[in-house]
């Protein structure tokens, strides 16, 4: 029944509310996934780096061992040419130092352990090797000589900030140890010579004692981080040296940072958009709820209305009707919506009128104060409605139709009609009573002298019959005459009362008073569906009393209207024609009523003669009296088309 039907639910909202968990859950999963991804990738990264570190360190250790082993071999190959003179030794040492072996000093000990040659010679007297022994270490010498194998000594400080250790390589000739070649490694230099640059860039590599003391470091940057480091045992001397590497904190790869950052940003964006979406949805829901409530409120309001509402678009098509309207006309909304004129509820007898007002409304020229119309119910009953039309404006301010509100005023009209009839009845009764009262007064006034005359005359006759002398009778007769005069005066007084003086005559236009008299009858004429054909051809100016003339015309119109009580509705018409000729205005009032029976035609103008049950028989008498008082003439004849024609001839004003 409405323009649209919204779902009647608040429950749907709650039924689908759990769906809100989904995006939240999804978001949490998403963020968790991203975090996990970042964490695993970071972890994998770390493990990979550690693996690299371990392999690097293992390689480095290998490399160092290779260095040391090669140096051992080279030292073991020292020959006589080198050990016998200083120059040869020096060249041998230079060769040894030449290929970055990490060696910094070569010492040649003879079989007794005496230092025979050394290069470079410069010895620091404060140097103490082998945990307090002299340099080179006696213990290592002995061990090497007895074992016949290279022996490494314990590391000892060299000057204040460096450490060095020795390798004692026994040299044999023909199965006999002839001496021991001692190579001195300076730890810092060993690292510098054996650790390649690309490794040094990645890690801080140090050699530590088993007590954790750092003996030497190859490093470009100082780093405090040690926990991530890796230590691998490096045991050339057999005294617990180890290689320790700490990876420098290499900056994370830009791509990874970007990826993480973008993931975080994306997550934020998703969160934000989700929040926005939710806020939007919530607001939208609130608005929808409000709208639904508003709609329900309006619907309840319009459904409870007694006023019928009907909306039409600009083409006159019905687009909406409310229940009150349906009740009023008896048609269901489904059968009315979409209908175009003529509407099923238009009253058959008023189709033209209804169509005209319909077109006027659609053209925007409808009466602003509303209009009355007759509608037909589905059961044929005709109702009176009062309609107000208002333009329909859509949300964009565009005028797209008309909304009509309808009030059923049938009862009101009937009541007013009844009241009017009651009023008429009262008036006519009041007139009758007044007239009866007047007639009674007149009768009394006349009865008194007549009764007196009668008594005088009877008495006189009685006297004369009894042979009384005539002289006794005369006074009674004189008195009787007096009473007869009195009666005559009463009658004269009544005449003067009834006769209107000509004082109130004025120049009037007959046409205007025809209109005025018709206006007095307007309700009756409309209620009975009578057509009035006006043919006023002349501007008839006459001298007369407007009130009396209007009364006379009113009487004639009323007779005409009432005579058509039994005429078929489509034939009910009154023709009024006014023409001027020969100094006379000729007014003809023709009805199509019951006509005048020939038997009563002669008595028609007699006072107190009436053909109507409730009539007084004064109407036509008054009319004639008024017309004659205006020096005119009232006559009638049968209407050739049925009914009666009354003619009034009135002299035109002499101008």
């Amino acid at each position, binding site marked *: 029944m409405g323009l649209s039907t919204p779902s009647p639910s608040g429950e749907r909202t709650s039924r689908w509310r759990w769906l809100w968990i989904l995006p939240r859950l999804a978001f949490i999963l998403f963020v968790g996934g991203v975090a996990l991804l970042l964490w695993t990738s970071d972890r994998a990264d770390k493990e990979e780096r550690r693996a690299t570190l371990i392999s690097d360190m293992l390689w480095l250790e290998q490399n160092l061992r290779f260095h040391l082993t090669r140096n051992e071999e080279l030292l073991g190959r020292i020959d006589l040419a080198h050990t016998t003179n200083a120059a040869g030794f020096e060249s041998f040492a230079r060769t040894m130092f030449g290929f970055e072996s990490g060696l910094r000093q070569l010492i040649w000990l003879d079989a007794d352990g005496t230092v025979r040659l050394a290069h470079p010679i410069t010895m620091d007297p404060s140097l103490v090797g082998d945990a307090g022994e002299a340099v080179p270490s006696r213990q290592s010498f002995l061990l090497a000589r007895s074992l016949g194998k290279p022996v490494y000594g314990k590391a000892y400080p060299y000057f204040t900030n460096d450490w060095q250790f020795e390798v004692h390589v026994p040299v044999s000739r023909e199965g006999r140890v002839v001496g021991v070649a001692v190579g001195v490694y300076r730890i810092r230099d060993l690292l510098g010579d054996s650790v390649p640059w690309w490794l040094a860039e990645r890690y801080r590599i140090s050699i530590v004692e088993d007590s954790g003391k750092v003996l030497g470091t190859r490093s470009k940057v100082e780093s405090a981080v040690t926990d991530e480091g890796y230590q691998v045992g490096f045991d050339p001397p057999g005294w617990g040296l180890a290689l320790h590497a700490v990876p420098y904190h290499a900056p994370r790869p830009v791509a990874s940072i970007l990826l993480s950052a973008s993931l975080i940003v994306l997550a934020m964006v998703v969160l934000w958009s989700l929040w926005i979406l939710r806020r939007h949805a919530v607001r939208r829901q609130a608005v929808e709820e409000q709208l639904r409530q508003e709609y329900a409120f309006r619907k309840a309001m319009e459904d409870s209305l007694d006023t019928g509402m009907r909306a039409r678009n600009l083409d006159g098509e019905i687009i909406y009707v409310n229940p009150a309207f349906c009740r009023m006309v008896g048609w269901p909304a489904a059968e009315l919506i979409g209908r175009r004129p003529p509407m099923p509820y238009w009253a058959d007898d008023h189709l033209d009128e209804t169509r005209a007002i319909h077109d006027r409304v659609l053209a925007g020229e409808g009466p602003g104060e509303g209009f009355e119309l007759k509608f037909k119910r589905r059961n044929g009953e005709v109702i009176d409605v009062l309609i107000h039309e208002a333009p329909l404006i859509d949300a964009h301010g565009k005028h797209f139709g008309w909304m009509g509100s309808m009030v059923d005023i049938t009862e009101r009209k009937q009541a007013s009609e009844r009241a009017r009839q009651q009023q008429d009845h009262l008036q006519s009764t009041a007139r009758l009573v007044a007239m009866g009262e007047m007639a009674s007064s007149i*009768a009394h006034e006349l009865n008194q002298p*007549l009764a007196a005359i009668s008594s*005088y005359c*009877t*008495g006189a006759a*009685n006297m004369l019959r009894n042979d009384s002398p005539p002289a006794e009778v005369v006074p009674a007769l004189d*008195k009787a005459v*007096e*009473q007869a005069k009195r009666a005559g005066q009463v009658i004269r007084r009544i005449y003067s009362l009834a006769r209107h003086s000509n004082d109130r005559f004025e120049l009037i236009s007959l046409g205007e008073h025809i209109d005025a008299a018709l206006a007095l009858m307007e309700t009756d004429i409309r209620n009975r569906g009578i057509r009035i054909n006006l043919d006023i051809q002349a501007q008839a100016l006459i001298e007369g009393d407007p009130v009396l003339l209007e009364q006379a015309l009113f009487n004639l119109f009323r007779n005409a209207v009432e005579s058509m009580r039994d005429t078929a509705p489509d034939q009910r018409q009154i023709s009024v024609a006014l023409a001027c000729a020969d100094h006379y205005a000729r007014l003809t009032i023709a009805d199509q009523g019951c006509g005048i029976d020939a038997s009563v035609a002669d008595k028609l103008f007699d006072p107190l003669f009436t053909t109507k049950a409730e009539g007084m028989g004064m109407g036509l008498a008054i009319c004639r009296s008024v017309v004659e008082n205006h020096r005119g003439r009232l006559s009638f004849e049968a209407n050739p088309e049925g009914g009666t024609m009354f003619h009034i001839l009135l002299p035109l004003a002499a101008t």
Partner: protein
Amino acid sequence: MSGTTTHIVDDDPAVRDALKWLLQSRDVESRTWESAQEFLAFASRDLCGCLLLDVRMPGMSGIELFDRLRALQCRLPVIFLTGHGDVPMAVQALKDGAFDFIEKPYDDNALVDKILAAVDQDNKRSIRENSIRLLEQKVAQLTHREQEVMQRILAGKLNKVIADELGIAMRTVEVHRSHIFEKMQVRSAVELSQAISPLGNKPPN
């Protein structure tokens, strides 16, 4: 003799005068009154004759005067004259004891005849009333014992029976009987019965 006077009450002097003249032409004595009040001041229960009464008059109306007269127990026959008479008013007036109700215009001599009839009726009534009043006076002269005895005489009882009933001597009854006849001016029980009949069957008290 005032007993046969016809009283005319009408506010119209011409009508009064004409009616007086009419009655005079038939030798009926009449007296005119301008208003109901004037007549009411004069009226008494002894009035005899007839009253010709106009209904519509300024001041007290004819109907009202009629009611007042009845309140005074004046039995004067009343003939209403009216130009405005209607059936209910006439019926009520006649029920209340009016002699007649005549609408104007009327036949004058017929009116006079009606007046004469009313006067005659009133005369008979007054004569009858006078004789009853006389009889009542006579009965009133009897003593209580005499009235008791008279009742039994009228019942046709013998002296002996009466003496037994009253517990007195027959001789005493005879004395009472002669006293009764004397006072009632009759000579026999039959005469007594006839004389007492206008009083009806009601026993004298």
